[in-house]
């Protein structure tokens, strides 16, 4: 970091964030969950797909902390593997949504006038459409290819981002340092990478954190309807569905994935709100 004397806006932002105890705690919790899921091939107590039909469904105990499902598979191991899918979809689809939203927003804001209005009106109309239906169809079509699912989910989640970025770009466009570099003959790409991106970075990071829960929810929705990830792989949404089917006999199969899923979404919301309050003075005043 830079010199210790004067505090730039970034440092004060971090200080504000660090004072937000809920957000900091949520951030550590998220890191722990993500690390556990990522390391699941090594740290999971059992292979997630190993069945033990003789054992069947067992309530949480010392050997299986979160119990087992009807096929005798260890719930904790499956939670970790499912987390990899759920968090993976959340991250990758968010990156897709970001890339698209930022480019679209900057392009619209930069163009200005009629083009900007037409582009933003398109976003308005798109955001009123039942895109969940289209995503569900995409997941059925591309069900075998997990990357296409990322693309489909990301492809419908960029709308809010593009709207925010467009407004920001319009206000950046007329700032002096941008005008100077345009006058000095810097190319459009240069202006984009040197001036727009660094100035937009904060707001991009904030809204990325707020996009992830929505995206994870969408994946869970589709998996819940039985149209998402296919067995023996699993995701949190699918585990909740399987749990809901037999909740009378084995409530732990519903409770474990639901609690983990809700806690993760809760933490993401806390971190996102914390970041926004710390780094986006305009939003917190709003």
């Amino acid at each position, binding site marked *: 970091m830079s010199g210790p004397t004067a505090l730039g806006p970034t440092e004060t932002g971090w200080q504000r964030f660090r004072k937000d105890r809920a957000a900091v705690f949520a951030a550590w919790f998220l890191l722990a969950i993500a690390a556990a899921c990522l390391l699941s091939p090594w740290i999971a107590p059992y292979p997630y797909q190993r069945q033990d039909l003789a054992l069947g469904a067992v309530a949480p105990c010392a050997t299986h902390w979160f119990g087992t499902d009807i096929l005798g598979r260890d719930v904790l191991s499956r939670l970790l593997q499912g987390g990899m899918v759920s968090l993976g979809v959340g991250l990758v689809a968010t990156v897709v949504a970001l890339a698209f939203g930022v480019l679209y927003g900057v392009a619209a804001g930069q163009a200005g006038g009629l083009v900007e209005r037409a582009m933003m009106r398109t976003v308005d109309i798109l955001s009123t*459409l039942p895109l*969940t239906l289209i995503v569900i169809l995409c997941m059925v079509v591309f069900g075998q290819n997990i990357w296409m699912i990322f693309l489909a989910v990301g492809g419908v989640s960029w709308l809010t981002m593009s709207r925010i970025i467009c407004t920001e770009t319009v206000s950046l466009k007329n700032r002096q340092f941008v005008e100077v570099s345009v006058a000095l003959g810097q190319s459009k790409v240069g202006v984009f990478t040197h001036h727009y991106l660094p100035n937009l970075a904060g707001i991009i990071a904030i809204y990325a954190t707020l996009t992830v829960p929505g995206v994870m929810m969408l994946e869970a929705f589709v998996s819940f309807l039985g149209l998402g990830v296919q067995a023996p792989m699993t995701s949190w949404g699918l585990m909740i569905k399987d749990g809901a089917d037999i*909740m009378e006999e084995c409530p732990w199969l519903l409770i474990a994935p639901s609690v983990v899923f809700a806690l993760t979404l809760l933490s993401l919301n806390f971190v996102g709100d914390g970041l926004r309050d710390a780094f986006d003075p305009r939003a917190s005043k709003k």
Partner: protein
Amino acid sequence: MRYGYIFTRLAEMLPVLLIVVAATFFLAHAVPGGPFEKDRRMPPEVKKRLEEYYGLDKPLASQLVTYVGNLCKGDLGPSLKYPGWSVNEIIGSRIPVSIQLGLTALLLAILIGIPVGVLAASRPNTWLDRVPMGFTLLGICVPSFVLGPLFALVFALGLGWFPPCGWGSPIHFVLPALTLGIVTAAPLARLTRGKVIEAGNQDYVRTARAKGLPERRVWFVHALRNGILPVVTYLGPAAAGLVSGSFVVESLFDVPGLGRLFVSSIINRDFTLILGTTLVYAAALLVLNLVADLAKAALDPRVARGGDR
């Protein structure tokens, strides 16, 4: 002026719906498997005759043109899965159920969400604010497909107050409507709280208080009236949330509505039914958003005067 605006908005919907039809059409046909592939294999010549009868043997583009042509006459085509039924009939029989459920849930969300939001805003950072807002945070993070099974577990299987699934009598209504309503009420309450707090700092609220109006009137009439605009705008997208929520809730509680129809039509590869339900949903959402915008114009003279923001 107002009619011109409505007309423009309605005219805008046509190309959008066309794009939705085309996108859904190609996606639906890209789904692996076809409507006639069942557990028992049918003889190839029978399948061929069936495909010929429904026009499925023609190139996709010409099928699309035929479909859009029929659509202009208001005909959504025959169902491929349920012979003898037209998509219009099937959807027509399901729509009332979904509308009843959706409207009840929306009403519930408004009746819970807005008062809770205003109440929290009137006493910021006290227990009256913190406790309900904590619950709304839970409501945001616990999706309908977690809340629904939990409700069924507690109120139907545990306490036995309501039937766990089914449809037909008002008592079947309670759990699905409650699930959908609470999930929608949570973000509504948070939004209302934020906007009303913002309005509460304005001079006219101070004036209202200074002239001796009771607190309740200050918050629920003066502050809410101005804080409610973004809330009304939110109700359009909230309807969209109700739609995706209804897929889950209808499947969960075995409600014979449009949402479950859409899910089962995908599983059955019933192309015409997939297209029909998607189209109905798209049209409904576009109209609901228009209604939300018109309501906003009615509440705020500045919007009515013609600024497009």
